[in-house]
């Protein structure tokens, strides 16, 4: 969490919270929902995150990357308090997942044999894309959300997730393979061609 070093006055704290944190409230709520896949849990997670952010506001350097700082708190909160009770399919540990995929020469798990065409993707509905994304293991889903939906750079993602940049890169690569596979399977099952 970093050390409290700034010692802001109450007025400054309010100012930071209202002007630097609140602008990201929708993005935070979205992230919370996409991690928990549950509206009530997302609300609780957001609330907990905001309380923590305010409590530890002294360790936030005014004018720096508030969005990444807040996302990091939310993600840590999620891992500590929500992950265990979460009903999402992604219950596997980071390390376990990485080892599993690394066992195959560090390459993608399976070659994608299904012929997925970009026209097929273009014809898919938002719900279909969302379902494919949500069916992914939460660790892989997270990197896609951070990169594609929130536009974070690898360096920011490394800080949010507490992992080296190289791991961000390889996890994202695997996540994209998995997503592509899910979309291909889904397209095939729906008779898309």
């Amino acid at each position, binding site marked *: 969490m970093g050390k409290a070093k700034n010692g802001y006055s109450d007025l400054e704290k*309010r100012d930071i*919270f*209202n002007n630097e944190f*609140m602008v990201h*409230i*929708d993005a*935070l*709520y*979205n992230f919370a*929902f996409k991690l928990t896949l549950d509206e009530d849990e997302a*609300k609780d997670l*957001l*609330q907990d995150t*905001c*309380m923590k952010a*305010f409590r530890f506001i002294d360790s936030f350097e005014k004018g720096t990357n508030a969005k990444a700082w807040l996302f990091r708190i939310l993600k840590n909160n999620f891992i500590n308090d929500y992950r265990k009770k979460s009903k999402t399919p992604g219950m596997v540990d980071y390390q376990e997942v990485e080892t599993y995929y690394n066992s195959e020469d560090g*390459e*993608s798990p399976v070659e994608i044999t299904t012929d*997925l*065409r*970009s026209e097929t*993707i*273009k014809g*898919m*509905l*938002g719900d279909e*894309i*969302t379902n494919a*994304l949500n069916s992914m293991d939460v660790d892989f889903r997270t990197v*896609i959300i951070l*990169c*594609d*939906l929130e536009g974070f*750079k*690898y360096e920011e993602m490394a800080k949010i997730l507490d992992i080296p940049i190289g791991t961000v*890169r390889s996890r*994202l*690569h695997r996540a*994209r393979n998995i*997503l*592509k596979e899910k*979309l291909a399977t889904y397209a095939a099952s729906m008779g898309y061609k």
Partner: protein
Amino acid sequence: MGVFVRWLQRTFGMAKKTCPVEQECLELLRLMLDEQATEEESKYVHEHIDKCYRCYENYDLENTIREAVKNKVKNLKVPPELVTEIKNKIDL
């Protein structure tokens, strides 16, 4: 760019041919689409997909999936009453 080559490849059934550097190219083009590739890496990808239909297809698909995730996945707005609740709790 490379339209003629792609037409040739498609017409003469070379499109399905494998590319020896497909995996490396896929990794690099993903970096490029994430705006994390170096200038050199981007240049390599552009030059390669200009003459390799297989990798061009990968590029096109990657780009499309990314756009679909960005534009089709629904974004939620935080319920206003939750914002009020949070602000009350923090005593703002």
